[in-house]
């Protein structure tokens, strides 16, 4: 029984290792390999608005296909990544970007982890200081190791 489970598990693991990363592939006529890589890099950073937990690169939603086509066309027209992102955010808001921009409305998002670490450090410092003020326990705790 154990052997069967091990065999099954290794098949699953092997499959997971050997499967190439999945992209939703459209037949887009890229100029060269560099442009194709740039396209993949860009669409990986963008959110599919329909599925919302998938990137534009991975999604098979029909709107994602349309947006990939539009992004491709804009690349052909010589638009920069920043211009394409701007084009998308002006329609679909910053939510399409997986990497949210730093601005006053996103300060809480960006700095709350730092804030939590600071609060934790303060609590820790207070506890340690209080302990330091307490008399040391006697070295002979009565425990025999």
């Amino acid at each position, binding site marked *: 029984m154990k052997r069967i489970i091990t065999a099954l598990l290794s098949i699953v693991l092997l499959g997971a290792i050997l499967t190439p990363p999945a992209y939703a592939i459209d037949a887009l006529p890229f100029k060269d390999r560099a442009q194709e890589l740039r396209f993949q890099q860009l669409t990986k950073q963008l959110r599919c*608005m*329909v599925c*919302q937990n998938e990137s534009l690169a991975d999604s098979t939603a*029909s*709107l994602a296909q*349309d*947006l990939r086509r*539009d992004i491709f066309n804009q690349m052909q027209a010589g638009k920069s990544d920043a211009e394409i992102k701007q084009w998308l*955010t*002006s*329609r*679909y*808001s910053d*939510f399409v970007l997986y990497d949210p921009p730093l601005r006053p409305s996103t300060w809480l998002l960006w700095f709350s982890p730092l804030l939590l670490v600071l609060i934790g450090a303060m609590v820790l410092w207070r506890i340690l200081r209080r302990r330091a003020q307490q008399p040391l326990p006697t070295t002979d705790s009565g425990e025999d190791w």
Partner: protein
Amino acid sequence: MNARLLPLIGFVGLFALLAFGIHWNTRHEMNEVPSPLIDKPAPEFNLPLLFDPTKTLGSKDLRGKPYLLNVFGSWCPTCQDEHPFLMSEGKSLGIPLIGLDWKDQPDNAKRWLAHFGNPYSTVIADEDGHTGINFGVYGAPETFLVDANGVIRYKHISVLTPRVIEQELKPRIAELLETKQ
């Protein structure tokens, strides 16, 4: 303060946070993304009429009075849920209800409207979906209230329920019609 109460206080705090989260989730549509186009000029468009593709209707033709743009498609099941409310309320809105047939085969859309009824004053066909994308549409049905100057004043994602029509749409339409006169 008794230090032994601390775990209990922590637990109650966490419980309150999670309960609030569940409460928040039931009250809000978490997939809804606020549109950056609110209070901005509606994107320009000029699209063929569904029932007469030789003619077009454009954003310029619609200047001068407010209108409601409803994005739908025959492929969209939620649009079917919305459809009866448009049939019953569409005519009493006081402004034209324009249908934008989004990413759809015109023949399918015509059949869909023939079968369920046509609540729209005009239907325009956006076959390749570009106008929808310019409006930031990501899930039909979506509805845009555009004022006489061509500015988007309000957007609703998903079904226009009678409650939304009464409480959110009609007051805004009344406001637009009032300021116009």
